[in-house]
């Protein structure tokens, strides 16, 4: 479903070579390594990966929200274009400027709606706080605004809910409140860190639908952080797959699902029960040997990364070349928007050597 007619949307966020290191007692840990991706205005980019792949650290780095007690080293650039059209490097901004951006230009929703609301304030007060902070409204006007936000996120009896405390709301309701809170200042970029993971399936669908509607209405961009490929397929425009702190494959969503290039992406897709069923129906797999595919092994420790490709120890297609060096992220010569980090990919210099060896 490509809209080829319109000219490419302007860039909202352009992350270039972002790396985040943690200085721990066991040594310097590279949690995010050389990550580059971009989000166009009004579009959704998904960061996909399993736990510990660095996707949350990426978003927290962008927001300057990593715990200040940890010793952190960040390098790279994150060029953000504000509402007014100014472009700035988020990573170079001082804290005071960042505070004006957080909640205002860039808002965030978290995985756990049960604990991301302050238990001692009513939801109205919490939404109003953000509005007063960034839009400078007075108390009454801010509460009015909060009520409109609750209506926007389809909370029934909003005027009454406004004066309720978080514990009086269900998980789905709380996530709606979180979204209202994030949307209150009409952000240009919404970072959604696994917003539906803690919710049950029917509520998940509602929340995703709500986010999609709000995106269409407000034209905001979304950075969607998730490990749920099903959600990605429905809601993202671009996908970046992360493994062990690096992007291993980046592509428009349809291309990625149609033809995953990296063995890790292929493995992830094979893990989906729906894919399994499709293979069975196509007669590719015997129904009697019904087992869900799982990528063997575990993510390698960031303290002792394998010498070559980080995925090599778990990769079914690994060859000896894979152990030599981390492959570069290559752009597909036939498709400018596709990138992959694997020696098996044709255009990769190492692939030629691999062929020569074989």
């Amino acid at each position: 479903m490509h809209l080829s007619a319109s000219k490419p949307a302007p860039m909202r966020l352009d992350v270039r070579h972002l790396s985040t290191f943690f200085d721990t007692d066991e040594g310097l840990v590279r949690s995010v390594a050389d990550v580059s991706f971009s989000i166009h205005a009004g579009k959704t980019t998904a960061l996909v990966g399993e736990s510990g792949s660095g996707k949350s650290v990426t978003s927290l780095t962008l927001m300057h929200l990593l715990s200040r007690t940890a010793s952190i080293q960040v390098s790279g650039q994150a060029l953000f274009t504000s509402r007014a059209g100014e472009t700035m490097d988020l990573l170079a901004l001082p804290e005071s400027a960042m505070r004006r951006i957080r909640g205002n230009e860039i808002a965030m929703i978290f995985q756990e709606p049960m604990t991301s609301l302050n238990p001692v304030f009513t939801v109205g007060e919490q939404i109003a706080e953000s509005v007063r902070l960034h839009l400078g409204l007075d108390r009454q006007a801010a509460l009015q605004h909060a009520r409109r936000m609750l209506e926007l996120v389809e909370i029934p009896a909003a005027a009454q809910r406004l004066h309720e405390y978080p514990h009086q709301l269900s998980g789905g309701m709380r996530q709606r409140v979180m979204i209202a809170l994030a949307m209150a200042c009409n952000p240009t970029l919404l970072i959604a860190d696994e917003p539906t993971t803690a919710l049950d399936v029917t509520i998940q669908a509602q929340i995703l639908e709500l986010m999609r509607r709000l995106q269409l209405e407000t034209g905001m961009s979304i950075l969607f952080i998730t490990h749920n490929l099903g959600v990605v397929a429905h809601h993202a425009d671009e996908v970046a797959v992360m493994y062990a702190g690096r992007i291993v494959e980046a592509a428009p969503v349809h291309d990625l699902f149609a033809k995953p290039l990296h063995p890790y992406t292929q493995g992830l897709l094979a893990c989906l029960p729906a894919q399994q069923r499709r293979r069975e129906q196509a007669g590719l797999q015997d129904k009697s040997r019904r087992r869900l595919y799982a990528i063997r092994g575990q993510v390698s420790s960031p303290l002792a990364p394998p010498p070559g490709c980080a995925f090599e120890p778990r990769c079914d297609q690994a060859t000896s070349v894979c152990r030599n060096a981390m492959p570069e992220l290559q752009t597909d010569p036939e498709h400018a928007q596709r990138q992959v980090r694997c020696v098996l990919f044709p255009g990769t210099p190492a692939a030629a050597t691999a062929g020569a060896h074989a």
Partner: protein
Amino acid sequence: MKLPLTLRKLFRRRIVLIAAVCLGLVVMAALLANLITSFDPNETAVSQRLSAPNASHVLGTDELGRDLFARIAYGGRYSLAIAAMTAFGAIGLGTLLGLIAGFFRWLDTPIMRVVDAMMSFPDILLAIALVAILGPSMLNVVLALALVYTPRVARVVRASTLVVRELLFIEAARALGVSTARILWRHILPNLVSPILVQVSFIFAYAILAEAALSFLGVGVPPDIPTWGTMVAGSQQYAHQALWIVLFPGLAIILTALSLQLLGDGVRDLLDPRLKKSM
């Protein structure tokens, strides 16, 4: 009259209700001292000295013939005021220190080591030393006691701050662009109200006892101010001939301190049911 649910829950335990009533009576007696007795607490009547409780002197008189009931009622004003100010001071300072130590990790060690050092002194010894330095006056007793109880509050508040600061809604607040000062004041402090409230009642009770102890040891409030402590202290040598002059102020101290402790227990159990002790 229907009490709010919280209060009804609090008073479901009879002992807490009794404690609250006793405390209420003590406070009322102190506040309304000039209405419930016609005697001047400092008026001496040597002819009446050391008279046993009787129709005109309900609790008897002391060694100078002063009416004991009047002195206990008026003394309650001082004792309760000293205790209240102590609790207020200790809570204020302790909360500030605990909040800062718990939130700003680099200030944690310097603040908490000083706090630990202060806690390593016995309470009364530290209070005596402080009063000795500051000089004996009512305000200095309050100051000394407040300093003595500050570490207790600081530790409780720090511990709770460490828990609350890691909760997701603090990160969420920061993601909304809320400043650090505002996060401390608006997002962390309100979540610490329960442990602080419990500390208030305990420190109030400790302060009543400590003031009495300091006065008894002669380093507290100057003896011309009637507090329960100075009353017990001043009359100890007559105790063998007139037991009541030690007994009644002592009972006032015990009743008030015990009521406060029980009430504090009740409040704590109400706010944190996991800590409930079987009584």
